[in-house]
């Protein structure tokens, strides 16, 4: 299982942080974090996750090279996940969640996002990396902008979250 190629560029790696290809052994920690609601406010994928569903996703990601699932480790503990998936003709979509509150604000997200952009551009030869986020998730938006993403569109009433239809801010990093 290859570790993602890491080209630091101008983004520094926070101490003890690694972004690695997802392994089956990470699944219990990921399921527990989603199901505790650690990222319930910010995630676009808000249903409870069973181990079975997450394992199937992991296997699918391994078999089909079109989905690349990664785990974010800090001092060898699972603190988050990130993925590149569903390559459209011109790009791939990025998703990231950092479960561990103590690992936020340290540049972990910035490091993971820029690592995945390197994978998308250098290995997958994507023309663009895109993602959706809630317009009031300012920390995430700052992180994406620091990694080269720009705001492209406000998709009105696009996603059902926490009992209401919400807008989604669509952002992209174009090579």
């Amino acid at each position, binding site marked *: 299982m290859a570790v993602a190629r890491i080209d630091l560029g101008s983004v520094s790696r926070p101490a003890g942080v690694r972004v690695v290809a997802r392994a089956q052994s990470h699944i219990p920690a990921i399921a527990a974090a989603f199901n505790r609601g650690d990222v319930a406010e910010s995630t676009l994928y808000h249903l409870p996750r069973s181990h079975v569903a997450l394992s199937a996703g992991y296997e699918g990601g391994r078999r089909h090279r079109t989905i690349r699932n990664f785990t974010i480790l800090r001092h060898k503990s699972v603190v988050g996940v990130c993925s590149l998936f569903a390559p*459209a*003709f011109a790009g791939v979509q990025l998703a990231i969640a950092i479960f561990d509150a103590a690992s936020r604000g340290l540049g972990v997200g910035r490091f993971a996002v820029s690592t995945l952009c390197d994978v998308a551009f250098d290995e997958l030869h994507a*023309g663009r990396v*895109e993602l959706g986020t809630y317009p009031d998730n300012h920390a995430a938006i700052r992180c994406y902008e620091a990694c080269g993403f720009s705001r*492209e569109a406000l998709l009105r009433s*696009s996603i059902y979250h926490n009992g209401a*239809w919400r807008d989604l801010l669509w952002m992209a990093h174009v090579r």
Partner: protein
Amino acid sequence: MLHQWINQSPARDWLMTRLPLSRENERAWAASAAVSPATPTFVVQTRTGKDIGVIGLTLHGARAELGIALHEPRYWSGGYGTDAVQTLVDGAFRALPLLRIELIVFPDNVRAIRCYEKARFSKEGVLRAREYRRGKYQDVVIMSILHEEWRRGRGKD
């Protein structure tokens, strides 16, 4: 007919479909579009029954993506596109539990954008280098109409 249309269409410069499509591709698309509940698809006709193009939706839960192509240029700028889009939007919001209908269009397809605006779609943004056309990645405009906007506008036309 569909096969000839799609590959020789004067509208092909504006289509998001990557051409050419084989007769088999097109037959498979038409067969699935005709029966799949997720892709309601219709032929656009003039009042006298002449077929001039295709329009349809792809449903994703409470979202739907609209696609249209009028393959007969002598019917362009005659209001057929606007009429077809308005009819489909109206029918879709009446019949299906949709919150929004969206579409993407090349920014230089001024006629189409005008048509969507007449049908009360609004521009939401520009997705850069999103579609491949004429040898390079090109930007696309994303537009949408919400159920609420359709409901408010009913009876005004």
